[in-house]
């Protein structure tokens, strides 16, 4: 302990004192010994020699004595670090490039990985979440159809593969009696639901088996956020009620704060059984899906097989129109991530490639540098540096660089992640959970260390093989360049060019897709249209007449608002997406097989809708006030349907059957054909759509479209006032301009394109640096050869041709491989490309040209240097 303190004191203070003192002491003792010999009568020079021989090597003794004052391991580490830092500072350009390369690679990686981790990888925050599955019905190729009450009860009762199972469905209610009428979201669930998601009430209780029965009492469990925000966290709520759509529900409990199930925030939970009846037919679909937890030893396929057997048995016992329905299921985590999955994997793949480029770059730079340092290493070996010591020093230096790069990368990743969350489009599931957490830190630290070691190993492999004589003999030549090293370095640069080309091509494809998606017509003119979305509560609007009366008055009122030009209403406004598709058939056409019955969107349009939206009429007419209840049932179809069924004749006059040939359903006569509308947003492909007139199929949920003369937002206050004057208990679901709503459907594509473009730019920069580094070294290693060639009469242009050929070979190899790789990778992009083919030759050529240009740019400086070699001076030195 005392020893340790003394050393520490010395380490902190008297750095110089001890070595000097030791040197003096050794000198004086040598003299004392010489004196002794002299005293014994030995001649002076002999005495000195003898003393020196007996004494030993003074330098070594001094060193060993000095070592007693150090912390041996720590000292070597410090020394390595000092050497490392000195190495970094000695060639700041090199170090800067390496550190920057690593920073960019690691920063981009940790940011994107954080997102991928939170959205795709991290288990959902439920007990045994990896065994939670989402279940629906399937029919032919259609998967995820809602589960009927009868089927669900049978699944739950007879399955052998699920530990627990709960039906759920979302619903919307108007809450009244607590100030302003409030539009609220509910989820109707079985009591098992709470067990499945592991939620225990903070107040009161959750549902029991009693509430699972069909036709149970009206009760509600509150979501924590709703309880705090809307009811002030009042603990007295348990004795209270909620008035939903005019009916009173008793509050029985409050759930703890937790993540939103399926990323859908809800305000409260209602018992599933309340809305169902055991007498409803087994073919009556609502919108219920089922959440189940697999038994621990059961695979998803086995479980679905189990449910299918139950479906088959039900079909035998209780035959009906849906006897060929089967079960469908996905793991909940896959279902939750949904369609963000391909984009995130694409981005993850892109940043992974960036890191590969970064590593290749760094490895190349380090390799080139260690080759130019082989003289230094040879000299160190000559004066006695152990091989292990050199290896350790090289590794320390590289790990130091990698650590600095890693730390900066992490910092960059932190900022990049915050920027990413800021610009990310809405609707990316679990984005709120994203953060640079411990796992991300570990991932990044792992990357840093692996990079450091991989990069460190490269020069160590050569450092061990440095041949002292040849390295020293090389004299003026500043580097050795064996064939093996050369081909390794070439391979690295070729790989970089290859990867860069893949990234450039991919981002080019996405960019073209984005432009294509932006430029396609949505099928209507969204400019200056304000959309007002409403849902009439069923309790106050119980019959179709009441619904129709309300919307008639609303549309009449809207027409009188100053600045309103045209007004119409629709059930499913673009870009709301899938408001429900259903089977249909065309009378007179060949009857399709049961699993081939086509699906179409079914929409409802009020008079004036097509005109207001400027949806072009292709044939026949649109709806008029004559299309009312009692009149013949009519429909307007979109061009996709018309072209599919009546390519050579007019669709008008033909009859469509709702539900297809195998299900009961009404028939409608086609009275008109309108242009396709991008119902699911920009950048989607057209889908069959059938419109019914509002008067023949009144819907509680309608969206009024108001085309204004000027800025549509300026109409908003008047629209709100009008709606409140018609029904002051009616909440407004949404009141937004159509133009911004349509544009926002491209947010996700824009986001992915922007990021991929950034990554492609990064890759281009890095590979330009890579080409530069390699060729620069190539020239350095050949300065002497260039000088000799010049001396023997080669012209500058000859040198340029010679060096240029070497560079071109590299670039050409990379581009050829890159074109092949990009071609192969284009398959993976299929789901993200829009409006062009993923195998777009023009795009591929453009990407190849850009990569060639950038690589040539990287090669230009070293090539110029090659032609400027001063032959006379170089040869003098050699």
């Amino acid at each position, binding site marked *: 302990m*005392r*020893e340790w303190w*003394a*050393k520490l004191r010395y380490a902190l203070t008297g750095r110089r004192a001890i070595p000097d*003192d*030791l040197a*003096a*002491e*050794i000198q*004086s*003792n040598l*003299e*004392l*010994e010489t*004196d*002794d*010999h002299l005293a014994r009568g030995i001649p002076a020079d002999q005495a000195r020699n*003898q003393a020196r021989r*007996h*004494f*030993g*090597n003074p330098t*070594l*003794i*001094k060193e*060993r*004595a000095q*070592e*007693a*004052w150090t912390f041996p391991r720590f000292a070597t580490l410090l020394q390595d670090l000092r050497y490392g830092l000195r190495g970094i500072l000695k060639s700041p350009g090199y170090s800067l490039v390496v550190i920057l390369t690593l920073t960019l690679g690691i920063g981009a990686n940790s940011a994107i990985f954080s997102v991928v981790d939170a959205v795709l990888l991290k288990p959902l925050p439920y007990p045994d979440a990896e065994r939670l599955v989402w279940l629906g019905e399937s029919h032919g190729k259609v998967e995820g159809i809602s589960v009927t009450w009868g089927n669900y009860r049978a699944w739950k009762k007879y399955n052998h593969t699920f530990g627990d199972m709960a039906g759920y469905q979302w619903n919307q209610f108007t809450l009244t009696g607590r100030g302003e009428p409030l539009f609220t979201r509910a989820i109707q669930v079985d009591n098992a639901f709470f067990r499945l998601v592991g939620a225990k009430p903070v107040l009161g209780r959750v549902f029991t088996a009693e509430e699972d029965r069909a036709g149970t009492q009206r009760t509600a469990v509150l979501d924590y956020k709703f309880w705090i925000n809307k009811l002030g966290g009042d603990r007295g709520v348990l004795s209270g009620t909620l008035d939903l759509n005019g009916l009173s529900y008793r509050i029985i409990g409050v759930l703890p704060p937790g993540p939103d199930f399926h990323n859908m925030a809800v305000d409260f939970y209602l018992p599933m059984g309340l809305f169902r009846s055991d007498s409803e037919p087994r073919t009556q679909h609502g919108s219920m899906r089922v959440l189940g937890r697999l038994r621990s030893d059961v695979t998803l396929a086995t479980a679905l097989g189990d449910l299918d057997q139950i479906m088959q048995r039900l079909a035998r016992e209780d035959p009906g129109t849906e006897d060929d329905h089967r079960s469908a299921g996905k793991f909940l985590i896959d279902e939750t991530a949904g369609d963000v999955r391909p984009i995130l994997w694409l981005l993850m793949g892109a940043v992974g490639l960036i890191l590969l480029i970064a590593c290749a770059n760094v490895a190349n730079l380090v390799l080139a540098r260690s080759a130019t340092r082989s003289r230094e290493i040879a000299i160190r070996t000559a004066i006695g540096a152990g091989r292990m010591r050199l290896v350790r020093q090289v590794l320390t230096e590289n790990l130091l660089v990698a650590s600095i790069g890693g730390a900066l990368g992490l910092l960059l990743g932190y900022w990049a992640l915050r920027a990413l969350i800021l610009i990310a489009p809405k609707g990316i599931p679990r984005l709120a959970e994203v953060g640079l957490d411990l796992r991300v830190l570990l991932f990044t630290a792992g990357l840093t260390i692996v990079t450091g070691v991989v990069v460190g190993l490269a020069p160590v492999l050569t450092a061990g093989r440095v041949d002292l004589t040849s390295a020293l003999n090389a004299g003026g030549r500043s580097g050795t360049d064996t064939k093996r090293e050369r081909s390794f370095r070439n391979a690295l640069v070729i790989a970089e060019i290859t990867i860069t080309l893949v990234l450039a091509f991919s981002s080019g494809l996405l960019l073209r897709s984005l432009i294509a998606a932006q430029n396609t017509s949505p099928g209507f003119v969204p400019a200056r249209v304000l959309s007002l979305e409403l849902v009439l509560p069923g309790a106050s609007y119980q019959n179709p007449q009441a619904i129709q009366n309300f919307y008639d008055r609303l549309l009449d009122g809207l027409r009188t608002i100053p600045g309103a030009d045209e007004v119409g209403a629709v059930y499913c406004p673009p870009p709301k997406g899938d408001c429900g598709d259903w089977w249909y058939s065309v009378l007179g056409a060949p009857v399709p097989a049961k699993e081939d019955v086509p699906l179409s969107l079914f929409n409802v349009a009020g008079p004036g809708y097509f005109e207001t939206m400027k949806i072009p009429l292709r044939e026949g007419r649109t709806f008029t006030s004559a299309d009312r209840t009692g009149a013949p049932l009519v429909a307007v179809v979109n061009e996709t349907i018309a072209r599919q069924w009546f390519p050579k004749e007019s669709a008008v006059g033909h009859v469509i059957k709702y539900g297809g040939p195998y299900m009961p359903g009404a028939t409608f006569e086609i009275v008109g054909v309108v242009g396709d509308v991008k119902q699911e947003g920009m950048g989607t492909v057209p889908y069959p759509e059938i419109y019914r007139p509002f008067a023949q199929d009144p819907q509680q949920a309608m969206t009024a479209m108001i085309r204004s003369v000027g800025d549509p937002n300026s109409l908003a206050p008047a629209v709100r006032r009008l709606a409140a004057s018609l029904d002051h208990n009616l909440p407004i679901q949404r009141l937004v301009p159509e133009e911004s709503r349509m544009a926002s459907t491209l947010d996700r594509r824009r986001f992915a394109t922007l990021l991929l473009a950034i990554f492609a730019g990064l890759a281009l920069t890095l590979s330009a640096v890579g080409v530069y580094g390699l060729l620069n070294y190539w020239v350095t290693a050949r300065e002497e050869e260039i000088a000799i060639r010049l001396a023997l009469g080669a012209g500058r242009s000859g040198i340029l041709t010679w060096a240029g050929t070497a560079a071109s070979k590299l670039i050409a190899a990379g581009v050829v491989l890159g074109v092949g790789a990009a071609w192969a990778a284009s398959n993976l992009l299929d789901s993200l490309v829009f409006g062009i083919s993923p195998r777009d030759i023009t795009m591929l050529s453009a990407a190849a040209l850009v990569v060639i240009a950038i690589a040539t740019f990287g090669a230009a400086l070293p090539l110029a240097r090659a032609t400027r070699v001063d032959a006379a001076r170089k040869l003098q030195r050699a």
Partner: protein
Amino acid sequence: MSTVDNLSERLELLQGTLEVLILRSLQMGPNHAYGIGQFIEHHSGSEFLVDNGSLYPALQRLLQRAWITAQWKTSPNSRRAKYYRLTALGRKQLLAATSKWERFVEAMGRVLAPKGVGRA
């Protein structure tokens, strides 16, 4: 000055004994490194050869433990030399080490002594 020519015949110092020998040599009074080496060789009947490569680091360790102190002085033949001197702590350590060493030697002797010669 060497009296034993074949170095391999000399005894190797056991781990940790050099420190004790240094302390012992300083019991007689302050001395310099050369003097300490001479003392040990002489008093061991030239069985121990003190290697300077071990002596100097050992002196540093003793200094660090504050068992000895050092001071530059002028030697009898008027040379400046660094003299080491036992501290009170060093004296205590020497006593402890000596008694420990005696026990060690006695125990070794007892074990190694031929059968029947040792006490029953």
